[in-house]
Every structure is written in structure tokens, then in C-alpha cells.
């Protein structure tokens, strides 16, 4: 069959890409809100409060500054643990991925640490190092590190051998190879590890705060859980999610766009 195509400039740009990315995001959030609202009305249960109830709960704790205080404490812990877990986990992961023998030796350790329940690590950390920030952040990091290791290890295993050889012949040395050859290839693995990482860290932070801190979102959420005040739980959750969304759109996405600008663009269609 004959195929005839006419291509006036930009005739076929889709609606979504014509609208700015901002509008798409707003539409997306609006859609989410609508679904929630409808579901809440249909469910009509104390357990799934409608948006206004959550806003009210938010306002109640926001007015006193309490919500922001707890949020800030949690964010501080999340940020600290995130940095530690990413740095340590990536270093170990890359090493294991590139060194077959080290990997064979440490693989069982990794599986052990992957599967130790958060509770055990947290309790041990608190008991040994006291109920302080260092123990809390350390415990979160220890929980997350094995996950980073596993992801980065896969990345390091899939490294391009051709480029590695090129770097070797041209004597890039250790630092140049790492910076210009290895790390850019690991970018998608970093992205995966850090996106799912920050959410995992936050979830562990909730447990850490439940088990031995006197502030933070996890502390608050558990208090409200005992009172079964779902609106307040959602208010705190959404406050954290909002922070994550802001970080995603103002920091992560621009950075990612910059660091993957070399990738050939996928042809539309």
C-alpha cells in the first residue's frame, strides 16, 4: 500500500506537549484531588475523610507551627540519612558490581542486611547509641544502604566494556574514569535508587520516630493513629508529599534534564 505523508512544520504536536508542563502537572494534581473527593463522598466514612476535613486538620496543626516543626525534624533526618545511604551504598554497590570475587564473598552479607527487619536495626541502634539523632539517622541509613547497593551493583555490572577499555588505553586513571566513564552510565540507577530511596527512607524515618523520637511526622502520625484521626494523618502525609513534589519539580527534574541532555531524543510518533 502506498504511504503518503505530508509534514508541514509542527502540524502534529499533541495537545499535552503544546500545553506547558506546568499545566499538565496542575491538571494531574487536580485529577487526583477529584478522584479522592469523589471516593470520599462515596465511601462516606470517617476513615477516608474528604479534602476539606484534611485541610482543616492541616490548618489546626499548621496554625500553631507544630506541623512545620515536626515536618522540619523529619526532613532533617531524611536528608541526613539519604546522603549517608547514597554515598556509602553507591560506593559499595559499584565496588561489588565491578569486582566479581568481592561480590561473591559479600553477597550473603548483603542479603542478610537487606532482610533484617527495620525494627531490629532501629532498636539495636537506640540501645547501643542512645536515643539521639545520630542513632536515628544511622539506623535509617543502615536500613537503606543495602537497597542502594543492590541497585548500583546491577548498574555496575551492566557497564559498557568498550568505554572502560578506551579509558584504560588512554590512561584516564581512577578519578577520571569514575567521573567521566562510570558515573554517567550509572545515572539511571542513581535516579532509581534515589527516587525510591527517599521514599523508603521516609517510611523508615516514620518507624524510627515511632520507636524513639519525641518529634517528627512519624511521631505525630502514630499519635493520630492511636486516636484514629485519619484526617490528621493524611494532613501530615500530604505535607510531606508536597515537599517531595516541590523538590521533584524544582530540583530533581531540572537536574535530570541537564544530566541526560546528551541522550538522543525519542522521535515523537
Amino acid at each position: 500500500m502506498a504511504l503518503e505523508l505530508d509534514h508541514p512544520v509542527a502540524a502534529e504536536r499533541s495537545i499535552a506537549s503544546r500545553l506547558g508542563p506546568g499545566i499538565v502537572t496542575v491538571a494531574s494534581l487536580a485529577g487526583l484531588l477529584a478522584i479522592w473527593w469523589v471516593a470520599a463522598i462515596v465511601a462516606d466514612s470517617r476513615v477516608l475523610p474528604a479534602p476539606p476535613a484534611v485541610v482543616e486538620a492541616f490548618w489546626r496543626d499548621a496554625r500553631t507551627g507544630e506541623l512545620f516543626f515536626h515536618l522540619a525534624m523529619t526532613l532533617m533526618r531524611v536528608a541526613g540519612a539519604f546522603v549517608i545511604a547514597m554515598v556509602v551504598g553507591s560506593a559499595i554497590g559499584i565496588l561489588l558490581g565491578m569486582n566479581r570475587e568481592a561480590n561473591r564473598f559479600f553477597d550473603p552479607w548483603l542479603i542478610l542486611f537487606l532482610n533484617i527487619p527495620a525494627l531490629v536495626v532501629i532498636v539495636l541502634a537506640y540501645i547501643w547509641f542512645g536515643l539521639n539523632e545520630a542513632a536515628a539517622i544511622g539506623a535509617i541509613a543502615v536500613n537503606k544502604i543495602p537497597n542502594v547497593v543492590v541497585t548500583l551493583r546491577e548498574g555496575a555490572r551492566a557497564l559498557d566494556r568498550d568505554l572502560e577499555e578506551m579509558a584504560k588505553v588512554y590512561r584516564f586513571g581512577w578519578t577520571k574514569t569514575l567521573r567521566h566513564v562510570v558515573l554517567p552510565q550509572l545515572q539511571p540507577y542513581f535516579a532509581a535508587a534515589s527516587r525510591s530511596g527517599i521514599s523508603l527512607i521516609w517510611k523508615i524515618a516514620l518507624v524510627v520516630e515511632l520507636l524513639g523520637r519525641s518529634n517528627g511526622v512519624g511521631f505525630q502520625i502514630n499519635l493520630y493513629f492511636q486516636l484514629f484521626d485519619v484526617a490528621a494523618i493524611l494532613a501530615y502525609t500530604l505535607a510531606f508529599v508536597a515537599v517531595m513534589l516541590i523538590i521533584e519539580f524544582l530540583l530533581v527534574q531540572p537536574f535530570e534534564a541537564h544530566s541526560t541532555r546528551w541522550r538522543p531524543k525519542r522521535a515523537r510518533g
Partner: protein
Amino acid sequence: NAHAESEATPTIRVGILKFGTVNWELDAMTRAGLDEKAGVDVELVPFAGEDASAVALQAGSVDMIVSDWLWVSRLRASGADYTFVPYSTSVGSLMVAGDSRVQRLSDLKGKTIGVAGGPLDKNWLLIQALAKRKHGVDLGAENSIVYGAPPLLTEKARQGELDAVLNFWHYAARLEAEGFRTLVSGTDAAMEMGTAGPVASIGWVFRDEFAEKNPEAIAGFIAADKATKALLTTSDAAWEELKPLMKAEDEKTFTTLRERYREGIPSRPASEEKADTAKLYGLLAEIGGERLVGPAKELAPGTYFDDGKNGS
């Protein structure tokens, strides 16, 4: 105390559940300045979970928490030096909906029962033992038992998914205010099983070592606690101030919580308590087995704090 002025007031850090019932009492205590009057400075360290305070005590981050004597005895038997001062006799109750056709324990057959404390919960063991002895019913075997988180089970009871729920006293009180009724309480079960009176199953827990080093702090704290309990027993006004902490949904819940709290204040002399506890321990060792009580065959000596005044 006049001579307390010369040196700094001893401080005692107490780990509490932020919205827990202990906090009501301690809040009332500090609010009324009863701790200062007794020559001790009570510092409250709030946590979000029961387990957190246990961890905090072991980590040395607080000096005192509220826990039960069984836990103390078990840890003592394994070498720790925790000790116990009775705090409350309020324990859990087995609740059913107001319009439930269940009237007696023997009616619980083929039902779904929620149990908040887990299979080793003392009250649950006692109620099971009672049902077996009095009605010949094996509650565990003839019903479907659901263990779970207390707030979740409360909600499930409201939804009607559970036919009965054994929950901690303040959850039970809240349900009561909503029209549920008590089928049997832990205290009832214990008394029917042979204790002379209500046993304070939870109490202040701290290390012997701490008590030796800070005798005035402990003495002061116990005195302040006594004074606070007296205040809360008599004064409704003191309760009004606790309202924000209690998070009662309505006035009815508020009064129910208040009344149940007052009922839980231990009134018996320590020696009687101790005798009953020893009896209960034997009973529990029998039904709960080593799983529950650990290797020790009887209550570990020193589980009850000996302040040197009461004798033994």
C-alpha cells in the same frame, strides 16, 4: 522540703505516650506543681508508641516508664535490675456491642474476637482460663481470633466486623461511651480466678540502680504521684484542664474515661498486691507457659520496689 533548696532539685525523666493515660496524670502533676512540692522535678519525654518507652528505658534515655510487672519480672530473671511500683489497676476489657446477643462468655462460640495485646496478653490468657474453667469453653479454639493494632480493632468493632473485642482500658472506655458494654474485664477475670482484689498490673518501672543513686527522686516521685491521684479522684476541675490531652470526642466519652480512670487507682496496701501478684504469676505461668513468663518459675524477687518503709 526546706533543705532541698541547698542542692539542685533531683530530676526524673519519665518516658510516656504522648496521648496516653499516664500523660494525663503526669500533666496534672506538673500543672499543679505537685512534683516540686515533693522535691522532685519531673521531666516528661513523650513518645508515640508503647514500645518506644521500653526502648528508651533500656537505652538509658529515660529513668522511668510505665510497664507491667510481668515484663519487669521477666527481665529481672534474665539479669536486668528493673523494679516496679503499682500505678493502675485499669486493664483491658472484653467489649461487645450494646445490642449484641452475647451475654456471657459461654455465648462466644463461632464468633470473631479481636484481641489487642496479642496471644500473650495477660487479660486474654486470664479470660480464656476463666472461660475454660467456668463454662468449659475454649475461646481460642472455638472462635476466630484476630490479633491486631488497638486502634484498628476498635474501628473494626465499630464497623461490626468483630463480634467482641478485648482492648486496653481507654479504648474500651471509648467504646463504652459509644454504647458498647463490658462482657468481662481483666480484673473480673483475675478475681474470679482467685485474686483477692484488683491487681495493679501496670506500674512505674525504673532501675534499682537509679533508685539507689537518687533515693529522694524516687521517694519524691511516689509522693507526688499519690498526691496527684488524690487530686484527680476528688477534683473535676483538674480534669477539665486535661481535656485537650484526652482527645475525647464528646462529653460522654470524657466522663467515661474519667470514671474508669478513677476506678483504676490502686487502693490496696502493697503487701496485698504482692501476694495477689505472686498468685497470678503462678496462674499465668501455668496457662501462658514459658513463652510468657520466661524460665523463672515464680515472680522474680525484687520485682516490687522496696522503698525500705513498708517492709516486705
